[in-house]
């Protein structure tokens, strides 16, 4: 049998009893040795660098969770979950199980052979061997997890609240909040769905999906940052988090007033933003570009020629070239004062059929990470309130979560510092 440091827990437990697979030789060794911290990712090229689209690969173990500073992948599923575990012991077991499944699924290997004692341990949708395939599993906790159910009230991250409704929001409760977040991302949709099925199967008693939005990343068209459904490149001005100093400054929660267990985590905001693409397509290109502040074809700021040119707002104080209420100018004014409100965007496009009025139901799964919700996301959101683009988008769901610190090694588990 595969070694399982938590077998006692499972014997008592209420979940399926995760049948651990056998890690592929290389994958297990890699998983054990790669302790990816900020330093480990520092050497890899930047996501936002125009010349280097190379993907950063993350091992499962590390100071931080994978799937945050790494580049967006081609396919994702973002889940919000309600915890149905009855108490703290069951919540602990749940997070052990999620960790064990995530470790196996991201490392790859042979699914457990159960003989005649059960149906097969794996759905088989990726073939007899689970390939790993660059899958990342990123878990977060919502403010509601810190209510009375699990005795965690005094451990809530300082800034973690229920996501408020902002001025231009039209929130649908069924698509908001959650006790946990789980994002599964991979280069292929089958890998994402295989992981979703596996994790759900092993955790049915302990958590249930509250809402789920699948997303994808478009290929560069023709180059540079991928485009969203509005036809514009989205994410051009992301901070250079490949630089650990930048990541420590903007993304990771470290020392300070936060509870000690939060070290190495990050505030995760997800916003489900419907894009009214038919309406948008009926807007003149000049107006579209003035709303964004960028040229649609190249992604260049309206005062530049290339996508990664830096807009020179100070030379255009009246907004003659880049309007003062354009999206890029409000979101990131590029002043010394607003420098520390920058955040790391990791958004995906979504597409989910049709609306009742016959329009395409598509939009953006906006995901961002930051060290401080108020200083970053909320401040940016306040600056964007009432921007001209709000007529063409409708944020209807999402939530605030705290992405847990990383799982450091084979004995560690998601939420250990929080629950232990």
């Amino acid at each position, binding site marked *: 049998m595969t070694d399982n440091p938590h077998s006692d827990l499972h014997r008592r437990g209420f*979940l399926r009893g995760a049948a651990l697979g056998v890690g592929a030789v290389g994958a297990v060794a890699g998983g054990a040795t790669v302790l990816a911290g900020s330093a480990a990712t520092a050497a890899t090229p930047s996501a936002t660098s125009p010349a280097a689209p190379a993907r950063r690969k993350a091992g499962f173990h590390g100071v931080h969770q994978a799937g945050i500073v790494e580049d967006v992948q081609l396919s994702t599923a973002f889940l919000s979950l309600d915890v149905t575990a009855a108490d703290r012991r069951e919540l602990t077991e749940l997070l052990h199980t999620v960790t064990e499944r995530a470790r196996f699924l991201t490392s790859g290997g042979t699914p457990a*052979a159960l*003989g*005649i*004692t*059960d149906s097969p341990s794996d759905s088989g949708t990726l073939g*007899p061997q689970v390939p790993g395939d660059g899958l990342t599993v990123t878990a977060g906790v919502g403010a509601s997890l810190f209510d009375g159910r699990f005795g965690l009230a005094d451990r809530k991250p300082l800034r973690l609240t229920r996501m408020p409704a902002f001025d231009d929001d039209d929130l649908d409760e069924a698509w908001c909040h959650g006790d946990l977040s789980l994002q599964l991302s991979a280069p292929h949709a089958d890998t994402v769905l295989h992981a979703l099925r596996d994790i759900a199967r092993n955790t*049915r*008693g302990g958590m*249930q999906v509250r809402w789920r939005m699948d997303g994808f990343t478009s290929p560069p068209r023709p180059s540079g940052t991928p485009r969203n459904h509005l036809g514009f490149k989205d994410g051009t001005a992301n901070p250079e988090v490949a630089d650990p100093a930048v990541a420590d400054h903007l993304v990771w929660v470290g020392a300070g007033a936060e509870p000690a267990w939060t070290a190495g985590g990050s505030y995760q905001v997800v916003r489900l933003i419907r894009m009214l693409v038919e309406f948008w397509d009926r807007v003149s290109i000049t107006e579209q570009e003035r709303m964004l502040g960028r040229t649609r074809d190249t992604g260049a700021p309206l005062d530049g020629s290339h996508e990664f040119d830096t807009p020179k707002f100070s030379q255009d104080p009246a907004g003659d070239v880049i309007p003062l209420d354009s999206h890029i100018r409000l979101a990131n004014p590029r002043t010394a004062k607003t420098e520390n409100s920058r955040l790391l965007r990791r958004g995906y496009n979504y597409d989910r059929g049709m609306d009742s009025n016959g329009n395409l139901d598509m939009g953006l799964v906006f995901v961002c990470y930051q060290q401080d919700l108020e200083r970053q996301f909320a401040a940016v959101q306040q600056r964007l309130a009432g921007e001209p683009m709000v007529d063409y988008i409708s944020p209807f769901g999402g939530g605030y979560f705290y992405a847990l610190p990383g799982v450091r090694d084979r004995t560690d588990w998601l939420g250990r510092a929080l629950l232990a």
Partner: protein
Amino acid sequence: MSAEPDGIEPPHPPSSSRTHLVRRWQAAAAVVVVAAAVTATVLAAGSGGGSPRTDAKATAPADGLRHTAVEVSTGTCGRGWSRPQAGTQVFDLHNTSGTASEVDLTDPRTGRIFGEVEGLAPGTTRPMTVDLGSGSYAFKCLQDDTDAVTGPTVVVAGRQPQGPAAAPVNQHDLIPPTLAYQKWVGQRIGELAAGTGTLKADIDRGDLAAARRDWLPAHLVYERMGAAYDTFGDADAAINGTVARTPGAVDDPDFAGFHRIEYGLWHGESAASLRAPAAALDSAVRTLRDGWSEARMDPAAMGLRAHEIIENAEQFELTARTDYGSGTNLATARANVDGTRAILGQLRSLLVPRDAGLAKLDAALDRTQAALDAQQHGGTWTPVDRLTHAQRQQINADFGDLLEQLAPVAAIFEVRRTA
């Protein structure tokens, strides 16, 4: 109603499992003529023993696992496994005989099975992936119309814990619990006949309030007998049939039984219009009761039904697919839990030594039952669409977990040849 040209199909029992079941039943039937197993000599690990040496070189396959080529035939069953080793590994089973064969990897002392491949065709090779710890193992080759042959015993040395295994369940093991369950069902059908008689009397005298009151207890008696519906045959559709969701489907003259009457009672139909359906229901139940002593339940279906009753409850009750106005799907689901307990009760002594997760299964049943019971208030059940979000999530979680714990029951009770 499954015969209707418009494709109307009753939601249960699922036809796929019926087909599945037939296959298993035939496989089991071939086993009834039993003779003593042929036991082979013990082959100590790596000794080569008396059997001709077949080189079982482990190739370097893409899966990174150790592979061993093993022969399957009555004369050479298990030949090729000469270097036993613990861990997850693959045996590439090659049938060198002219007859299809089943192959089990067993512990010859206990009979516990670690892996099986069914229907290995002549000349073909199929993989068997198993997780082996320290212990004694032997391949067992079972061909139709021939006694089982057990190959040489191979010993994996060391102190590695063993992987999952269970003793097989054969036809004989299942006959006593099946007979006992059949007897229990007979008693329930008597109870059911009393219930449908009361319902018919209420409707005959025009007391629809009483009929609405008496409908549920009678229906729930039926919903506790979930493992017997296959044996009921066409009577199941007459007693508990449903119709398609197409507009007007409820007016289908073939729509009969509890749900037909439910539709009328909760949609303002007159007593007169319900007299014929009530009489037909009562008559179908009495016919079933009078013929039950002749019925023969299929032992091979026991484990499958223990699992599938709750699959059907999740699919048709938790979705309210089978609601025709009474809003009592959760009561039905609760009766289905009783029904699952009834069949598990009969299988329990066979299950205890075979299912390592039995304590979890018991806990999951208790939890599911409690979650459902919480939705009954003075005999009134919360309709599925009135559950709060938290209640709904809890019930979904409990059913989901229960189903995962029931899946091993169906796997373990797949009828297997043992000799």
